[in-house]
């Protein structure tokens, strides 16, 4: 009997190096903040990051794309994509506004309960597009890109129809406080988003659902042969991403005291960008919630920081675009470094 050492082919780097490579979005975020800090001090004589107003603004700025990106992380790890999230968010925003007005006008529900019911209604309406997306992709074998593109149109039309082509104003002090209030200086939106991040991180890294999402994204055959119900898994993934968009929509309504069909329109691509900058591969099988949080913050810091240092706002599109391309290049280089197989 000979003992054979099963050493990975090619030299696998030290675990610490792999860990740092996975956290590269955070490293990039720190570099970005330092750069803005230096620029702000040199050009304007003010501090960028040691400024509570800036921190609060960036954090609030990041909440909406992040709420979309959290669910999108699961979808992208499963090697899918959800293009409907922007207008699912808009639909939820409109429904939350209507619900808030309806329960107050019709039943005289007090503002606090009205706020809870409105958030619930806005979040739960997202169940419908999420479920349809999941069923189309899992049971009718429609490619995620096409299925969710169809839902993009359906949710968009439905949102504008429910809104009557206008924004739907609300008048509920509690709902507005959710979107604009602070607890000990921390915006309520940030607290809600942070709690959602924790739940999503737990689901992705510590449950069978998360583990199966990774396996399914890497090899659908392996997942199926391991006895995983891949159809149910797919439905769950698209439901989760839609519910995140639903929550984002309800939060939008609180923040701007109005529901709007176009609430999430510019955020869809930001959500995908955040996931990719965070280190997920669009081929599936890799990505983390921590990375996505860093990705969303990178985008928020670039957008807010460029305005802060008085650069023309259109440069932010170019900057974010360049960061997306660079992160994909870094991801490919890291795959070679850590011995992962090339995707052919």
């Amino acid at each position, binding site marked *: *009997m000979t003992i054979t050492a099963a050493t990975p082919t090619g030299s696998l780097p030290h675990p610490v190096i792999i860990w740092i490579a996975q956290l590269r979005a955070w490293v990039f975020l720190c570099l970005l903040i330092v750069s803005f800090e230096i620029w702000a001090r040199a050009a304007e004589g003010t501090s960028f990051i040691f400024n509570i107003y800036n921190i609060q603004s960036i954090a609030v700025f990041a909440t909406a794309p992040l709420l979309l990106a959290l669910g999108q992380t699961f979808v992208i790890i499963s090697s899918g994509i959800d293009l409907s999230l922007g207008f699912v968010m808009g639909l939820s925003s409109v429904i939350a506004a209507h619900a808030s007005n309806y329960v107050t006008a019709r039943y005289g529900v007090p503002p606090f309960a009205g706020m809870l019911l409105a958030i619930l209604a806005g979040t739960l309406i997202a169940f419908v597009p999420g479920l349809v997306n999941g069923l189309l992709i899992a049971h009718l074998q429609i490619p995620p890109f096409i299925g969710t593109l169809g839902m993009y149109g359906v949710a968009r039309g439905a949102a504008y129809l429910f809104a009557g082509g206008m924004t739907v104003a609300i008048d509920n002090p509690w709902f507005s406080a959710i979107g604009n209030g602070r607890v000990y200086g921390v915006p309520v939106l940030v607290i809600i988003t942070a709690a959602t991040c924790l739940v999503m991180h737990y689901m992705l890294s510590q*449950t069978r659902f998360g*583990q199966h999402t990774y396996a399914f*994204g*890497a090899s659908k055959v392996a997942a199926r042969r391991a*006895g995983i119900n891949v159809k149910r898994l797919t439905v769950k993934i698209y439901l989760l991403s839609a519910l995140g968009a639903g929550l984002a929509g309800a939060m939008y309504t609180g923040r701007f005291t109005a529901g709007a069909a176009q609430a999430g329109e510019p955020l869809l691509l930001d959500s995908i960008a955040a996931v990719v900058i965070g280190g997920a591969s669009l081929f599936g099988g890799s990505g983390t919630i921590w990375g996505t949080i860093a990705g969303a913050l990178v985008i928020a810091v670039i957008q807010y920081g460029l305005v802060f240092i008085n650069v023309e706002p259109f440069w932010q599109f170019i900057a974010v675009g360049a960061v997306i391309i660079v992160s994909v290049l870094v991801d490919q280089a890291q795959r070679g470094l850590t011995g992962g*197989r090339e995707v052919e």
Partner: protein
Amino acid sequence: MSSSEPILSVRNVSKSFGAVQALNQVSFDVHAGQVVALAGDNGAGKSTIIKAISGVFHHDVGDILLGGKPIDFATPHEARANGIETIYQDLALADNLSIGENIFLGREPKRKLFGVLPILDRKAMAEAAQGAMASLDFHVTRLDAPAGAFSGGQRQAIAIGRAIYWNARLVIMDEPTAALGVPEQRRVLALVKNLRGQGKGIIFISHNLRDIFEVADEIVVFRRGENAGVRKPSEATHEDIVRLMVGG
């Protein structure tokens, strides 16, 4: 060996797909600690019979007995739960997961964090992986490495390690050496012998007669969905087997 009760007994099993008779009155036995090789040309019925055994589809007529009891599994999952593990040519590993995570895929163990929050027990998975791989004489140096970082033969070992950990009684290996280089093929054949030494029943499918003659205790030859004959490697030549395969 043939005196003991067989682990698996296939009795006069037939299966047709529409007008095509894929299996016609096929019979063979697999005993504990025995490697039974299925030989035959393409379309001879080798894949059909293992799919009937492993729950991919039902057979029409005849009996498949596992440990003396008739079985007709509805899904591969059910077959695995009853101790039948199938190792595929293309492996079916998730390349992004570690060895332990692959062994436990679909059946992950959990523990309670702070006594309340259920989380995946990655330590238990890694330890079990180390144990299962050690029983195959593989000492794994990096348990955190993704399965994709290992070579073809090592990946076969991971798939076999999964069968060992879950205490499979019957291991079905479909062309386990097909995609490998020569040194790795030797390694996998050694693994098959190791499995036999652990008392598993093994169904070994291969196109390569040299491999079959090296590991098999018994060679069951199929031709056009029928039993063409059973030979022991010690009492037959390659030519005998080929003659049975092609007829004549």
